[in-house]
């Protein structure tokens, strides 16, 4: 009887863990990412790090500033071209890579559309407070601020950006920028608000050469 009781308890615990969203995602490079369910959406809980398109073709790594600012091909880099930032902040991609038909997002996932960001923000009770629930609650990031809750599990990090006009790097530790299919959304250390459209490729093609982080969202079944 005692053994049956323990088997039952262990079984229930296993069931609990199987119900939790412990799903991981592996990209074409073999990088493994945590994921998180927020409302009815499933998001990557880390920034993208792939160096290849979904079909296996390599994405150009452009370290040189002039090459970065003039390319019309998809490209990636790490902040300051320093691999020390790769693990936490992932890679920065230009819009040519984000929009490449060979696919930047892992199989079964896609670059979020603006309306999917709107759904996320709405679920988090509005743009004025959503960022506080999205920022990672670790004092080592976001200029040491400690008021973020990361209630959503999105675990946003301030990966900064690469300026399109001259290939320079800015705002690591303070600002996080992510691509949607047409523009950016951004989160700042000093605010609980989610901002949008710092880079908007429909407004100005110059933004196509900005380097921003990428979070993918799982395709709906």
């Amino acid at each position: 009887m005692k053994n049956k009781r323990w088997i039952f308890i262990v079984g229930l615990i296993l069931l609990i863990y199987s119900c939790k969203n412990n799903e991981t995602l592996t990209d074409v490079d073999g990088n493994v990412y945590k994921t998180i369910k927020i409302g009815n959406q499933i998001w990557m809980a880390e920034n993208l790090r792939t160096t290849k398109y979904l079909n296996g073709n390599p994405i150009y790594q452009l370290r040189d500033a002039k090459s970065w600012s003039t390319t019309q091909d998809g490209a990636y880099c790490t902040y300051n071209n320093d691999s020390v930032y790769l693990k936490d902040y992932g890679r920065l991609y230009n819009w040519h890579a984000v929009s490449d038909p060979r696919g930047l997002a892992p199989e079964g996932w896609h670059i979020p559309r603006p309306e999917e960001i709107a759904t996320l923000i709405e679920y988090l009770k509005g743009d004025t407070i959503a960022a506080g629930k999205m920022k990672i609650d670790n004092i080592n990031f976001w200029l040491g601020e400690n008021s973020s809750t990361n209630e959503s599990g999105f675990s946003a990090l301030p990966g900064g950006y690469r300026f399109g006009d001259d290939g320079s790097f800015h705002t690591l530790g303070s600002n996080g920028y992510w691509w949607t299919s047409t523009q950016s959304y951004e989160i700042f250390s000093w605010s609980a608000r989610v901002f949008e459209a710092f880079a908007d490729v429909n407004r100005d093609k110059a933004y196509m050469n900005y380097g921003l982080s990428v979070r993918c969202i799982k395709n709906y079944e």
Partner: protein
Amino acid sequence: MRLIIIILSIIIISACSSTDLPDKTHTSIKDINSNEVISKDIKAYVSKNLAGWSLPDTSDYIKSWWSFYDKSVIPYAVKTDINDDGIADYGLILKNDSTFRFVILMGNKDSFTHWVSDDFKKSFNSVEKKIQFGLTVQPPGRIDIAIPEIKSLILKSNAINLMEFEMRDCIFYWDNGKIKVFNTKNK
């Protein structure tokens, strides 16, 4: 045993449901400025290095300021990194007996260095003898203005806005190792 089953059942139900968030709309909201900005280190630095000047408090602001803004939002201090060194810098409005001024504390590994705006010599509000200016952070982007003249500023890093209510007076920004001022209003 029955109790264990009930407790585990509750845990299972909550684990299997989606991650609904508690509604904390009215609590824990960090606005642009907050009490966290003013640390003991900042107070100590101002006291030691800027003799005769001190941080204002809410009572130093004109009454109508608080008709627009919540008292939990501190208007005279902001924290951001304006020179991309990964260390927090602070914009402060400081007061003395008759006037107030704008100061940037540039954070470094151990302490600060400070920069005082020569351009920003404001008097207190003529009627109430109090402050009607605040600070916000200006994130990177292109700023186009028509007054006092048509011109643009492309900000690559964070900067600090000096605001008279919702009207921007000027932007303090980092450029080639120096702090510069971009005026956005007729002086």
